[in-house]
C-alpha cells in the first residue's frame, strides 16, 4: 500500500526539530572544526586539519581527558551494570518490601546532576564531610581519603557518585528485561534439576542480552556526557585529574574561546563514542540467543 501524503505532514515537526537542533549543529561543528573561529568574532580562517593534528599529537590535556574518560566509563559501566542487575534479581518479586526498595534505589535518578554533585561534595569533603567523619566515628579512620582532592582517586570518587545516581534507572530496564523472560524457561530449568547459578548462567543471562545491550550502551554514552556532575564537583581538577572530554570541550570553547578547536574536539568525541558503542554492540551481539 502506498503511504499517504499525510505521513509527511506528521513527520514534519519532528524532522524540523531534529534538523534544527541536531543535523544543522552537527554539520556546523564539522565545518567550524576546520577553522580558527573564536566564537565571537565575525571573521575566521579555514585551517584544514590543523585543529585535529594539534589535538591528537600535541595536546596533553586532551590526551589526559580521553584517558580519564575511559577510566570513568569503565568504572561506571561495570559497577552500574553489575549493581543494577544484582538489585533487579533481588527485587524481582513484586512484594511490598521490594516495591519500597525499588523506589528507594530509583530515587537518586530523579535528582538533578547538580544536586547529586552537591551531595557528593558534602560526602567527600575531607574535613567536614560525612564519609571521613563516619569512618573516624566507627574506628575506621584508616579508610578516610581525600576523595576528590587526591588526583589518584578523584576520577573514581566522582564515578561512584554517577553510579549511585543512575543505578536505579538501569534497575528498571533490567526488571523489564527479567519480566519479559517466559516463565516456562525457568520451569523447564527446574524440571531439569538446574541449580540457581546454572539457571542464571544458562537461562536468565542469555535471555537478558537485549536489556544488557541497552543498559551498557546507554551507560557508556551517559559516562561520556557526565559534564554537569564533574563540573559541579571538581571542575576537572585537581590538576586535570577529573578532566573528561566534555569538560575539555567546555573549557576550550567557553574558557579559551577556541570554538574551532572545540568543534574539532566534539567531532573526535563523537567518533570515540561511536567506536566504543560499536565495539560493545559487536561484543554483546555474540551472546544474544533464542530458544
Amino acid at each position, binding site marked *: 500500500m502506498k503511504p499517504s*501524503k*499525510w505521513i*509527511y*505532514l506528521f513527520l*514534519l*515537526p519532528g524532522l*524540523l*526539530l531534529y534538523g*534544527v537542533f541536531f543535523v544543522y549543529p552537527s554539520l556546523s561543528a564539522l565545518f567550524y572544526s576546520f577553522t580558527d573561529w*573564536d*566564537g*565571537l*568574532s565575525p571573521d575566521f580562517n579555514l585551517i584544514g586539519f590543523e585543529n585535529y593534528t*594539534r589535538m591528537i599529537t*600535541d*595536546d*596533553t*590535556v586532551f590526551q589526559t581527558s580521553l584517558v580519564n574518560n575511559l577510566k570513568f566509563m569503565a568504572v561506571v559501566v561495570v559497577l552500574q551494570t553489575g549493581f543494577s542487575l544484582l538489585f533487579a534479581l533481588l527485587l524481582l518479586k513484586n512484594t511490598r518490601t521490594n516495591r519500597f526498595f525499588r523506589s528507594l534505589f530509583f530515587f537518586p535518578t530523579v535528582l538533578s546532576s547538580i544536586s547529586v554533585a552537591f551531595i557528593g*561534595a558534602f560526602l*567527600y*569533603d*575531607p*574535613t*567536614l*564531610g560525612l564519609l571521613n567523619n563516619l569512618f573516624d566515628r566507627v574506628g575506621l579512620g584508616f579508610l578516610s581519603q*581525600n*576523595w*576528590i*582532592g*587526591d*588526583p589518584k582517586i578523584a576520577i573514581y570518587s566522582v564515578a561512584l557518585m554517577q553510579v549511585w545516581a543512575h543505578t536505579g534507572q538501569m534497575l528498571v530496564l533490567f526488571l523489564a528485561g527479567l519480566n519479559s523472560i517466559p516463565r516456562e524457561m525457568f520451569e523447564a530449568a527446574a524440571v531439569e534439576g538446574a541449580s540457581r547459578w546454572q539457571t542464571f548462567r544458562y537461562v536468565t543471562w542469555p535471555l537478558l542480552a537485549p536489556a544488557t545491550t541497552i543498559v551498557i550502551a546507554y551507560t557508556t554514552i551517559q559516562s561520556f556526557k557526565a559534564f554537569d556532575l564533574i563540573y559541579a564537583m*571538581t*571542575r576537572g*581538577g*585537581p*590538576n*586535570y585529574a577529573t578532566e573528561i572530554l566534555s569538560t575539555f570541550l*567546555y*573549557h576550550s570553547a*567557553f*574558557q*579559551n*574561546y*577556541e570554538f574551532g*578547536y572545540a568543534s574539532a574536539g566534539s567531532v573526535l568525541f563523537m567518533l570515540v563514542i561511536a567506536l566504543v558503542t560499536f565495539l560493545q554492540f559487536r561484543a554483546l551481539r555474540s551472546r544474544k540467543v533464542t530458544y
Partner: protein
Amino acid sequence: MNRFVHKTTLSALAASLLLTVGCSSSSETTADGKVKINFLHWRGEDSDVFKELIAKFEAENQTIDVEMSVMPSEQYQSTAQTKLADGQSGDVFTSFPGAQFETIAKANLFADLTNESFVTNYEPNLIKAGQKDGKQFALPLQLVYNQPVYNVELFNKYNLTPPTDWEGFLKVCETLKANGITPIAFPGADVGPGQFMNSMLMNNAPNEDVFTKLEAGDAKLTDAWWTKTLSQFKELNDKGYIQKDSLGTKQDAAVAYFAQGKAAMLATGSYAMASAKKQNAELKLGLLAPITVSAADKKWDGIHTTTFMLAVNSKSQHQTEAKKFIDFLSRKDNAEVYANKTSQHVTVKGVNYTSPELKDTISWTQKNTRFQPRFLIQSGDVQKAVTSSIQDVLSGTAPEEAAAKAQKLVEQKLKK
C-alpha cells in the same frame, strides 16, 4: 485536498519555526513607553543592594526600567560573552579584568566610555584595568584585596602580629600549629590556588609583567620565580600549615572552617570577609599577605584587584539609558551605599566607609599593593596550567617537576 495538505504543512512549518525561535528580548521598549535595560552581572550576594539602588534609579528616571540578570561567577566568565553578542542582554554588564576583558574587547562588545563625565568620579589609578588602546572601556567598581584574611583575636591570643618576612611567616604558622590551630584554611579544590598564588608570588617575581613575558615566551614557569613559589607552597603543606587534604576542600567549607575558629588564616581575599562574619558575627578580621622574601627584599605589601567592571554593550539599542545607569552607580552617594552594604571597597572617590570590616582594612588603600598577577594572564589555558601546578605540588609532585609539566602545557597553548 493537495492545497489543504500544502497549507497545513506550511502552517505547521511556521508554528515549528515560531517554537524554535520564540525567545523574547530582555532589552526592549515596554508597553507604557518606558525603555527597559538589562543589567547583567555575577554578584548574586549583592542582589538586594542592587535592587535597592535600581528602585532609586527608576524613581529618578521614570522612563527607564532596569531588569537585573545574575549568573554565578564561574558561569559568567564562560558564557557572558555569548549572551552579550546579540545585544539582547546586558545593556549594562560587568566584566572581570584580564582574560574576560580582553576577550570582550577583541569581540568589540565594549562601548567607549572615555569621554563620559562619570569617569572622573573614579580614582584614576584604580580604573586602569578597564583601559585598552588608550580608551576607557569599563569602570571597575570594586576594590578587592586578594590575600589571606586572618582572625585578629587568635593572633592576639598567641601574641602574633602579621609577619614581615618568610621566616616570620613560618614562625607564625608554627606557633598556631603548636597551639592546635590550623594556620591556613586553603580551598584547594576551587578558588584557593588562583587566589593564594598572587601573594605567594608577588615578591618572588616583583616585576608586574612576568606573566606577559610568560605568554610571550620570554619567561618560563621553570624559572626560579615560579619554582621558588611552588617550593614555598610545598613547605607550607609539608609542615602541616595548610589544612590536611586541602585539595578536596571547596571555598564554602574553607570559610566555614575559618569562621569556626579552627583556622587562623583564610587563603582567599577580602571578598570572603562578609561571608565569614555572617557565619560568626564575633569574628574580628584583618588582612595580611605572606612575604616570601626577606624584609629587605620586599617590594610589595599585598595584592589588589579592581574588578566588577561596569560597561555598556556596544550592541545595545539603549546605550544612552545604559550610560545613565552607570552614571548613577558611579555617584559617591550610591557607591557608598553599595560599599557599606556589601562590605566591599570601591574605586569611587571620596567614599565614606562605615562597615566595620571596611574600616578595619582601610589602611590597605595606603599600602604598596600590586594588581592581581593572575588576572594579567590573558589565556585561560595558561591560567589553568599555572594554578594546576600548585595543585600538582600539593598532591606530592616535586616543585621542579610540576613546573616543568605546567611549562609544557604553556608551550602547547602558545603554539595555538
